[in-house]
């Protein structure tokens, strides 16, 4: 019978225990690095928002060091390009913290950094992988600023510059207005009045004695003057008849005089009216210009429309970075109400965090010092980064996260960036001061539409930016200068091309000022630039020139049209004068002559009597007749 062993130590159990331990050691020696590489790549991909590839990870347990080789950060916007590639990253882990369940990286060093390198596979994430990234600050800022920039672009006169500068259609529109001009209407009315008056005049002229009537009387006086006088009684009779004719002539003369006066007055009145109408032609020009809706000359600063998208892109990048910092370094406000108790998944219980006794946060990058060469297209630069206190639980770490970046790279003469991310309290507070010199902006669209391409093809940017964000209150200001600026203008309209080229011809330095302030829900976005002002001024002048040209054209057309009508009126008045005043004057003259003729005839009749005969006649008549001579 087998002996029954009592409860105690089973020495034979040490063998499987050793085997188990050996398996664990083998795992850490041969497989742990692979798994660590997988988890690191996964975590970095989540942070980056595009695929991050890691060639290999080597863990040195004796030195508490992790070395990462071949780190490629894919670009979100250009999936076939790496934003940055790093040859080697060395992380020195704090072993004391590891045994407490914390990851504390005391130091980080980076060597061999490249950017803009091509990728063999796309860095784009699938929809399922990327749906977790929900930016808040960036989206809010993006929406608010995008709205303003979009409005500025839509209102930009560059959108319909060809239409604004093309005044031919306006000229055509002006022609259709000419018949309705008030002045022309008035002159037409005068012409009509003249014609109506002409009828009344004709009846008056017709009431005057005709030329034949005057001739008849003339003949009668002549025959009376030459008739034979046989007796004094003949003299008396002839003189009486002549006097009767003379009276008739005087009556006619009076009527002719009255008619002439009236006609002259009417003609003068029409001439005055026609002359006065000419003075109101200017009002017609204004009227036509208003009616054809001549272009507005009120062009504001064009900087928001031209440089707004660039500023918006920079702001969005900044806000995305702050979004990321707030997502992965949350402040107290973003934590749960009871910070000591963190509810995990169902059936997995609740983790109680004893934070007062914890020495380190769960993750802490205590210091990262990067001093490495930077490569881009076989060109070399230098990158220095000093970052500290980057943690996922900033509220339990006494110091805020800080970073200082200094870059000299291909495409950047020099850039320095200093910032603080303070998420230790309820109020998230980020401050950044950046100074860049000689950033190559490459090709930058100022305006691109079907009709016009207005592009900066070369420019170097020097700028200073200050950012101060407290919770949702934004304060960003950037003052910069773009130098060595060259422009390309392409348009189907040669005139527009020339105008724009002339405007920016000598503008090789562009001053830029961008400001965003206020609450994130309603930020006040301001952007000013001498480029915008210069363009506004230049376009205003070009439009003014066109406007003046249009005005001159309209004025000429209005005058031309008026002169045609005025000529008609003048002609009508002249005709009136010829057919009325001249006839009346001629009649009057004839009748005045008739009166003189009658007087001469009476003298002639009287002269025919001898003095004796005259005395005898006087005696015989006894002074009953009084002779006019």
């Amino acid at each position, binding site marked *: *019978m*087998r002996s*029954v*062993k*009592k*409860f*105690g*130590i*089973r*020495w034979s*159990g*040490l063998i*499987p*225990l050793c085997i*188990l331990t050996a398996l664990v050691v083998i795992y850490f020696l041969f497989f742990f690095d692979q798994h660590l590489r997988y988890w690191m790549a996964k975590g970095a991909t989540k942070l980056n928002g595009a695929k991050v590839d890691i060639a290999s990870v080597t863990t040195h347990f004796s030195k508490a060091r992790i070395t990462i080789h071949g780190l490629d950060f894919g670009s979100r916007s250009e999936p076939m390009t790496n934003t940055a590639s790093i040859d080697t990253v060395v992380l020195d882990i704090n072993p*004391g913290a590891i*045994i*407490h*369940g914390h990851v504390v990286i005391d130091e980080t060093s980076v060597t061999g950094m490249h950017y803009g390198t091509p990728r063999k596979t796309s860095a784009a994430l699938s929809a399922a992988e990327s749906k977790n990234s929900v930016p808040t600050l960036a989206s809010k800022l993006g929406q608010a600023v995008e709205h303003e920039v979009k409005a500025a672009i839509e209102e930009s006169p560059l959108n319909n510059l060809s239409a604004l500068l093309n005044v031919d259609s306006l000229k055509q529109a002006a022609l259709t207005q000419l018949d309705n001009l008030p002045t022309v209407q008035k002159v037409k009315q005068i012409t009509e009045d003249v014609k109506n008056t002409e009828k009344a005049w004709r009846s008056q002229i017709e009431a005057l004695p005709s030329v034949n009537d005057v001739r008849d009387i003339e003949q009668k006086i002549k025959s009376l003057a030459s008739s034979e006088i046989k007796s004094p009684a003949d003299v008396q009779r002839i003189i009486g008849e002549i006097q009767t004719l003379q009276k008739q002539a005087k009556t006619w003369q009076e009527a002719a005089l009255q008619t002439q006066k009236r006609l002259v007055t009417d003609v003068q009145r029409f001439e005055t009216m026609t002359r006065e109408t000419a003075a109101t032609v200017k009002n017609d020009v204004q009227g036509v210009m208003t009616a054809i809706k001549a272009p507005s000359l009120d062009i504001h600063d064009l900087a928001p429309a031209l440089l707004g998208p660039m500023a918006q892109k920079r702001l969005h990048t900044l806000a995305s970075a702050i979004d990321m910092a707030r997502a992965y370094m949350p402040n107290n406000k973003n934590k749960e109400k009871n910070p*000591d*108790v963190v509810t*995990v998944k169902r*059936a*997995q*219980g*609740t*983790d*109680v*965090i*004893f934070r*007062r*006794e*914890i*020495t380190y946060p769960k993750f802490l990058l205590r210091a990262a010092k990067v001093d490495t060469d930077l490569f881009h297209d076989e060109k070399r630069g230098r990158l220095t980064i000093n970052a500290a206190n980057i943690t996922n639980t900033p509220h339990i770490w006494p110091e805020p996260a800080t970073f200082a970046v200094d870059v000299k790279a291909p495409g950047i003469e020099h850039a320095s960036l200093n910032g603080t991310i303070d998420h230790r309290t309820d109020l998230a507070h980020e401050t950044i001061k950046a100074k860049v010199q000689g950033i190559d902006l490459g090709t930058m669209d100022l305006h691109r539409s079907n009709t016009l391409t207005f592009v900066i093809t070369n420019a170097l940017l020097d700028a200073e930016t200050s950012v101060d964000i407290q919770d949702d209150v934004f304060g960003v200001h950037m003052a910069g200068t773009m130098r060595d600026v060259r422009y390309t203008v392409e348009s189907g309209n040669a005139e527009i091309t020339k105008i724009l080229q002339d405007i920016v011809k000598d503008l090789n330095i562009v001053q830029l000022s961008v400001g965003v302030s206020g609450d994130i829900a309603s930020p006040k976005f301001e952007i000013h630039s001498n480029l915008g002002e210069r363009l506004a001024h230049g376009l205003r002048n070009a439009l003014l020139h066109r406007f003046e040209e249009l005005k001159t054209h309209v004025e000429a057309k209005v005058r031309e049209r008026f002169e045609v009508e005025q000529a008609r009126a003048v002609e009508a008045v002249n005709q009136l004068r010829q057919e009325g005043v001249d006839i009346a004057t001629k009649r009057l003259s004839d009748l005045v002559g008739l009166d003189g003729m009658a007087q001469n005839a009476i003298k002639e009749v009287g002269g025919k009597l001898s003095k004796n005969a005259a005395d005898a006649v006087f005696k015989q008549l006894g002074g009953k007749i009084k002779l006019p001579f």
Partner: protein
Amino acid sequence: MFFVRQIIRVLALIHSEAATSQLAAGLVLGMFMGFTPMMSLFWVKYVVLALILRVNLGMVFFSLGVFKSLSFGLDPLFDRLGLRLLTGDLHGFWAKLYDLPLVPFTRFNNSIVMGSVACSIVLMIPVFLMTTYLIKHYRILVVSRVRGTTFFKTWQASNFYKLCEKYHAFG
């Protein structure tokens, strides 16, 4: 079928000449392992104990299966108990414990881990004593009587029984 096989196996263990204390200790260790969630340093400790302590491994596995099945239903109870313990008067003690090296990896600060371990500790001695008592009395009252029967004596004399004996010697 699996459960029937396990019960037969346990009955075989009880009927065997294995020490009562080993069987009871195996049951208790299985209870710890069954109640405590796996992703914790406690489990490493249990495995090491199972290997180096002279406990009946068959009973450990049986007990693990039984108590793991029970733990699914008892998790809410463990959660409440663990949370009360962690947030109660012992808060300072846990905080100091949490600050010790490697201890956080036990996940003792998790309510279910704490509740299940506390429950297991409380039940450890009663379960041990009760199991010992039950096995002893079972062996006296049932097994000894069965062993006295002619059928069992015939069976014990068979070659197949001897073969089984050799098999158990490994256990």
